[in-house]
């Protein structure tokens, strides 16, 4: 029977799931994903995490608990840095230590992923993980190469304008032969941490709602790194959070694009980086006269309230496009 590795459908799942999935499957392990977020999963997370921590981490706690009893290992790498001289967030640094204390947890795969010094420690981390399954170095190396290829393919799909859920469907060959829906008249840039904007449960399916209301949605992940980086470099000081860099770079880029009609920033309640990057983005958007909506998510956010705000926001965008209101 193959070893079962559990991957929580949370945090940087939206970036690295295809990579890890391919890697584990190449090594003969079976990958089990936690169920899509639900009220039950969030409640489990709320019970085991401290009150002060942000919503996405609480949800991650819930996803880890969802995997208990189903798997032999849980993949929970300590993501220290995924790019030179940048960090993710202190909570990512401490996540394995916070999760380890939960009752009944299977062994964690908690390798350090640290590229802060710019070296190729990604492979070091991958090698350490691979050792759990095989002693054959060549096999690990080949699996790594293969998973990197899939990872690049996944990001190419995102750069084409797909959302992670759609890109995963393409990768896994689940796309049906249907005509694409007609594009909306409005295009809205949706900015935020990937785990906040792509999890339809915690953001009340904001992407789907915007689409049904007639708006196209584009995100920071639809942009190539080169563009994001060159715009983010305009800040007086380089931001040291990788995800913050993505948001700021994308915001500055989209503020200059005439086809973008509005901007939505999604923050999690109590998120440290969001309190700073959100402030910067809001100031820039106001300066550029771009319609801007800041949504803060927490476990109490009411669905009706979010819909009302989205409707009001899109009305504002439409009025501005029709020239009936001036600068917001």
């Amino acid at each position, binding site marked *: 029977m193959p070893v079962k590795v559990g991957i929580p459908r949370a945090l940087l799942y939206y970036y690295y799931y295809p990579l890890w999935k391919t890697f584990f499957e190449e090594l003969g392990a079976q990958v089990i994903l936690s169920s899509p977020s639900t009220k039950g999963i969030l409640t489990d997370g709320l019970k085991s*995490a*401290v009150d*002060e*921590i942000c919503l996405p981490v609480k949800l991650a706690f819930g996803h880890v608990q969802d995997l208990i009893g189903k798997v032999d290992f849980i993949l929970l790498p*300590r993501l*220290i840095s995924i790019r030179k*001289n*940048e*960090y*993710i*967030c*202190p*909570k990512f*640094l*401490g996540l*394995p*230590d*916070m999760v380890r*204390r939960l009752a009944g947890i299977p062994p964690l795969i908690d390798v*350090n992923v640290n590229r802060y010094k710019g070296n190729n420690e990604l492979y070091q981390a991958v090698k350490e993980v691979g050792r759990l399954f095989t002693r054959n170095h060549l096999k690990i190396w080949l699996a790594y190469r293969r998973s990197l290829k899939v990872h690049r393919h996944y990001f190419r799909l995102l750069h084409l304008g797909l959302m992670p859920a759609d890109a995963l469907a393409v990768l896994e060959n689940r796309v049906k032969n249907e005509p694409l829906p007609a594009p909306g008249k409005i295009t809205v840039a949706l900015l935020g941490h990937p785990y906040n904007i792509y999890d339809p449960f915690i953001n009340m399916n904001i992407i789907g709602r915007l689409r049904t209301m007639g708006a196209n949605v584009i995100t920071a992940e639809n942009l190539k790194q080169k563009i994001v980086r060159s715009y983010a470099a305009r*800040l*007086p*000081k380089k*931001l*040291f*959070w990788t995800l913050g860099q993505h948001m700021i770079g994308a915001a500055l880029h989209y503020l200059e694009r005439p086809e973008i009609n509005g901007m939505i920033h999604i*923050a999690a*309640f*109590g*998120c*440290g*980086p*969001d*309190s*700073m990057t*959100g*402030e*910067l983005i809001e*100031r820039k958007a106001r300066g550029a006269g771009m319609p801007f909506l800041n949504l*803060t998510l927490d476990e109490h956010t009411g669905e009706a309230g979010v819909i009302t705000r989205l409707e009001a926001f899109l009305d504002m965008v439409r009025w501005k496009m029709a020239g009936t209101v001036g600068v917001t």
Partner: protein
Amino acid sequence: MRLTFPHMGNMYIPLTAILQPLGVEVVVPPPSSKRTLTLGSKYGPEFACLPLKLNLGNFIEAYELGANTVVMAGGCGPCRFGYYAQIEQAILKDLGYELQFIVLEPPERHINELLRKIRDIAGRSSWWQIVQAIRFGYQKALAVDEIERSALFSRPREKVPGSTDDALKKALEMIHSAATPRELTAARERALALMGEVAVDMDRPVLKVGLVGEIYTILEPFANLYLERHLGRLGVEVERSIYLSGWVNEHLFRGLARGIGSGKKARAASYPYLRHFVGGHGQETIGGAVLYARRGYDGIIQVFPFTCMPEIVAESILPDISKDYGIHSLTLIMDENTGEAGMVTRLEAFTDLLARKKETKEAL
């Protein structure tokens, strides 16, 4: 150039001591107050942590006193503090305050980046004078910490309530007004003597509590709502994990000066609870808690500003230490809505708990 800086407890004493001999005009912002906080939370980002809001308030109040340049430290993450200066600058600019910022960042490529900024501040003073000024400031930081430590000892034992704080205020003023190293030596002796004169009752039973957490809320009495004072009145002797001089030694001098820099020890003790640094003082909080528990303290109090990321990680792990070592812990989170009376109630309940536990332990 009229220079100002953010408040952090008694940091203004060593900072003034460094800047004044270099011929810099220093504007010390008024002590942090309700008004400072109101200004800061009005203009600062809603979910920014408390220190940013107080800093912002300090700058506005210093501007009103005529300051035109701010000097502060930077950083390279992952804690938010590293980006404070840029956010505060953007906010102040939009509000129309004309304040220049000199941000002392850890040099990325070459030490010259930092030296050039120091040169900007110091004007025409020689490097020798600058080194002397920094040494003088460090001496003052050491003296301030000595005085504070003696206040922590006498506060729970004082015979006349409030006498320690009266003496502390006078003693700090003595250190602050010393203008030369020679004057400082005399002032330090007089100040310590003054602290020694506080009448204490050595037989009174006191509880020992270790204070861990985020540096700003530990060092700034306004930010922690005078936590140490309240604990002292409740008969608790507080041992702090962080002192100004220790922090300066570790971060600016890289541990060159011999001193009480116990950060390394604390970080080592944090294993296996927290196996990696998490920014800020998260690892020191966990390690400090372990050390206090091993040394047989009665309790641990953790204090940090609302939404502080490294300390939230530590908070998640602190219950394990409580369980493993059988030591009680209390987490206090500070923001602009925290009420002093509510905090005192919690402290009273906590000290009652500790006292009862100590009694049963001693009776056995």
